[in-house]
């Protein structure tokens, strides 16, 4: 029987907090950037010019149909060679994670916008509203209500996906885990602790999602 010794991790807790900070930093920044990308791409795909549709679709499918790990490595190793610019690991991670999140958020936005009844556009037009105003005041608020559950589950995935940045030696929670393991020779305790930390951060988020979903359901 394995003798667990979590006390052995005591000297390393500051590294875990540090790693969690990095994980949260990448989550927040790439979710925000991804949302911006997703909103723009999602709107362009539903209401934008026809010529924009194909390239945007190509972007979305490229990032949805290749593994994030491959994208990360490609942006870190291949992209700098192609465009002749040095890229820090941190920058590569930010770009890859943002583009990845953007592709998924774009589809969520598009789905939400298209789920709004056509009659809503007509009602807005019938009282003399301009297109942009109908979108902002009438369609988008309803689309966001529809999107919230999908948005939260995608954001939960995004936080977990940041663990991939450890591959290019960015010091997130998982990376710190490998560092601590190398120093403490306690992989079971370390990775169990890391898993618990992820869980403790994410579980409340799923509860919030459930609650929101129920509340929105009641409103409709």
């Amino acid at each position, binding site marked *: 029987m394995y003798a667990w010794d979590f006390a052995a991790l005591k000297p390393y807790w500051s590294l875990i907090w540090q790693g969690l900070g990095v994980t949260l930093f990448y989550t927040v920044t790439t979710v925000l950037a991804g949302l911006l990308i997703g909103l723009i791409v999602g709107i362009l795909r539903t209401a934008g010019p026809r010529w924009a549709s194909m390239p945007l679709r190509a972007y979305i499918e490229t990032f949805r149909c290749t593994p994030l790990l491959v994208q990360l490595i490609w942006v870190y190793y291949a992209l700098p060679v192609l465009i002749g610019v040095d890229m820090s690991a941190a920058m590569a991670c930010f770009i890859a994670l943002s583009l990845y999140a953007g592709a998924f958020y774009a589809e969520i936005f598009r789905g939400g916008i298209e789920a709004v009844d056509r009659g*809503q556009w007509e*009602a807005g037009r019938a009282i003399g509203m301009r297109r942009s105003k109908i979108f902002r005041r009438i369609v988008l608020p309803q689309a966001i209500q529809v999107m919230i559950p999908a948005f939260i589950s995608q954001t939960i995935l995004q936080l977990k996906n940041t663990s991939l940045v450890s591959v290019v030696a960015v010091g997130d929670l998982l990376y710190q885990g490998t560092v601590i393991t190398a120093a403490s020779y306690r992989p079971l305790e370390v990775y169990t602790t890391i898993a618990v930390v992820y869980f403790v951060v994410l579980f409340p988020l799923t509860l919030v999602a459930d609650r929101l979903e129920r509340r929105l359901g009641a409103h*409709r």
Partner: protein
Amino acid sequence: MSAAEPTLSVTDLHKSYGALHVLKGVSLGVARGEVVTLIGASGSGKSTLLRCMNLLELPQAGALQVGRHRFAFGKGEAHPRDDELALLRRDVGMVFQHFNLFPHMTALQNVTEGPIQVRNMSKRESIELGRGLLAKVGLADKADTFPAKLSGGQKQRVAIARALAMKPDVMLFDEVTSALDPELVQEVLNVIRELAAEGMTMILVTHEMAFAADVSSRVGFMNDGILAELGSVEEVIRKPQNPRLIAFLNRFHRQPVGMRGSVDAGHSGAASD
């Protein structure tokens, strides 16, 4: 505007969807204060005609005039811009079959949205206007209720108040009772009847023949993309001459029409011989 000039007129309007020719040259002028009802079988083009009057549908050819707004369609005519369309629609109220209330707004917010966002009315003034209109349609107590909590008849009355809040020159009603439970139809028709009595210029597409007979200044019969008949209630509903119109009215009531009074609601069960 001179008294002779119609509030709304369409001239030789053509509309097709691909190969389907829905409007085949329709002309109609509606004077201030008139109530014109359009009847006809489904697919006859009556709803399309109505939707061309605020350009929710853009015709391929013809002309539309509402007050000072003028649009011409056809070869060589520019496609109307979004802002020109918006200016027209401020002055043309429309009520839809399926209400199309904004579900994320209360009844009052539905009514004040247009005045605030389109007419740049102050919030206070618009709330006063909105409460007044909700009271007018009998829903003063529902101001803070969301559409999901309203009955169909209540929703439609809020939708009428929303359209009225723009102070339109003309109101369009597109089968506004067709989606309602039978017992809720009258409360909506009563509101429209009241508007007619106040002199609101209105164009209605409806299947409520008794109501049409009661409220209309003129009745138009649409058949196969053409305004086949246009005349008084007497000429079109009570004593129809056009064989297609007679067939339509007969099919509609499953009882012979053409005799005076036979389509009045109160007489529908009366013996006609």
